[in-house]
């Protein structure tokens, strides 16, 4: 560039922007302390979801614990106290993480598998797919998601997968719309035209140039979606519609606590804090990624 006979002000704007972008490398986003902390927390939650049921296999089938020590507050023996059947709250909280996180994962996966490919096609190619995506998202925006999920549960009683995939499908058009509007300006970029002229296939351009550019928007939307899915999953579990009796889940534990609200008000706190903290971290994560992204791409 420096050998170029033109002064910098004569450069077309995309190139100037390209140079300022070089200052922040794409990787730097993941080194921000806020984002790193969120990732560590989410990593721990996922780790607990995987490990806890393996280490504590009996907790999921335990109908009663120590019946001589029911509804106890936190102590050195039971760090988070015991529930109405004398079972250790901490153990149940750890083991209950799995069904909660798996539900969120299923909803996310369904939304991603439907939303990203269709959104990219709509934004990159336009045409009738674009109209269909817009129409679909108009339609699903006015769907009462939780009631439809309940209808699904009436048909498939107790199926976490059926309920959460339904939620993901209802959320997918919203994701499609985000992906579409993120992919739309990329199509107009000079380097896409250059890639086309040099004979690269659409498939290659999408995976090499379009997907990296929209990944930020997808991550932001996914963290929001995960937060909502977590609230819906725990809500349905709270209504005792998802997880059958002895097996623990975060939402089900809030329901157990609500039943003993007079005798032991403490019981609603551990699972509630777990839910709220995880949703909070997902929210902060989404905001931080969005901020990092707008700084990178703002011109």
């Amino acid at each position, binding site marked *: 560039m420096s050998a170029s006979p033109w002064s910098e002000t004569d450069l077309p704007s995309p190139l100037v922007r390209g140079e300022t972008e070089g200052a922040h490398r794409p990787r730097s986003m993941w080194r921000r302390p806020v984002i790193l902390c969120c990732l560590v927390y989410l990593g721990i939650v996922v780790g607990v979801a995987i490990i806890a049921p393996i280490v504590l296999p009996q907790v999921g089938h335990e109908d009663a614990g120590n019946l001589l020590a029911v509804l106890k507050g936190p102590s050195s023996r039971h760090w988070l106290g015991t529930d109405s059947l004398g079972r250790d709250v901490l153990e149940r909280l750890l083991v209950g993480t799995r069904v909660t996180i798996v539900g969120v994962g299923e909803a996310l996966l369904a939304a991603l598998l439907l939303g990203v490919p269709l959104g990219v096609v709509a934004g990159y190619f336009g045409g009738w797919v674009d109209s269909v995506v817009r129409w679909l998202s108009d339609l699903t925006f006015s*769907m*009462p998601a939780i*009631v439809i999920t309940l209808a699904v549960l009436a048909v498939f009683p107790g199926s976490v997968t059926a309920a959460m995939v339904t939620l993901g499908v209802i959320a997918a058009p919203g994701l499609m719309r985000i992906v579409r509007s993120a992919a739309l300006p990329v199509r107009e970029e000079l380097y896409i035209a250059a890639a086309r002229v040099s004979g690269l296939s659409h498939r290659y351009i999408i995976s090499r140039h379009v997907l990296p550019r929209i990944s930020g928007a997808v991550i932001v939307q996914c963290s929001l979606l995960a*937060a909502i899915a977590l609230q819906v999953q725990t809500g349905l579990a*709270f209504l*005792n519609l998802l997880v059958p009796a002895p097996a623990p889940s975060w939402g089900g534990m*809030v329901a157990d606590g609500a039943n003993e609200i007079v005798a032991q008000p403490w019981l609603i706190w551990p699972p*509630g804090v777990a839910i*709220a903290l995880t949703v909070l971290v997902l929210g902060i994560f989404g905001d931080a990624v969005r901020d990092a992204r707008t700084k990178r791409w703002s011109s």
Partner: protein
Amino acid sequence: MHIEVSNSVAVPETATELNTSQEVMSAGGRIRGVLLRHRLVRLLARRIALGVVLVFVVSALTFVLVSLTPGNAADDILGFTATRAQYASLTHQLGLNLPLYEQYAHWAGHALTGNLGTSVFTGQSVTQALDQRLPVTLSLMLGSLLVSVVVGVAVGVVSAVRGGIVGRGADALSLVGFSLPNFWVGAIFISLFAVRYRWFPAIGYVSFGQSPFEWLRSIVLPVAALSLGGIAAIAKQTREAMLEALGSEYVRGARANGIRRRSIVFRHALKNAAGRVVTVVGVQAVGLLGGTVLIENVFSIPGLGSLVVTGTVQHDLPVVEGTVVYFTIIVIVVNLMVDVVYSWLNPRVQVR
């Protein structure tokens, strides 16, 4: 070209005629033309059309879904002890032997006349059960919508105008408000304000007609628990929209012209920020409606939400289907009202 005799009431038959014979258009046609040209009417027509499509799509999807159920309503009603003849006659009576699209047409035809079938369990008319519970859910939803809008807009405006620590506090508040699941907040409120301090009843619902004061007492905690998320979202949007409006050229101009600060904030900035606020209010209204499902179960309130959960547990499909239809219609009406308010606030709005 053949042109109708002037002053006749006949409406022109073709589009070309309509263009060439403007002066012979009947009075009715002219009014219709004016109306159709009117933005808002076109917008509403489009929205209502979309809404009707939506009700059909959602109810048909639910219908197909329900047909996937192993076993059918006849099984549920008769139980295991029924004879084959009883089963066959009930299946016939319920129309379960017909092809699916005929069953749906049958159901939709009845639904259009306000008959959504009968509950498999209680034998009560579904329409009747839903109509009984609708005011309860609506009072919860509208009450928390009112609280969310008033508190949310106030927090948003104050935090945008004051900035600094107040602004950061509002940001933190909206993040926390978003994170707390409403059923948990409801349980905390019961444990604090009903069990410990006994200010409000823990559960139950008193209708407005029975005693307005007790009605108010019975919905304070549920409405407060529901509103938290709405307040958070509306405060956040209001704050962002206000910050944008306050940083714009016309506010600088107004300030340079010596217009009072209060007038700038409310007459100029808030008016321009209102469009975005209304949009998020619409989204929140739909969210609050979903939230009533959980809150009604926390506080044992006999609304649509507790009905649909009971219906789900009992496998009472007509009830679940009917509730889906009601919820969809409420959502459509809410979106319609949002569109009206939005285009009233922002005359530049374009029909998409």
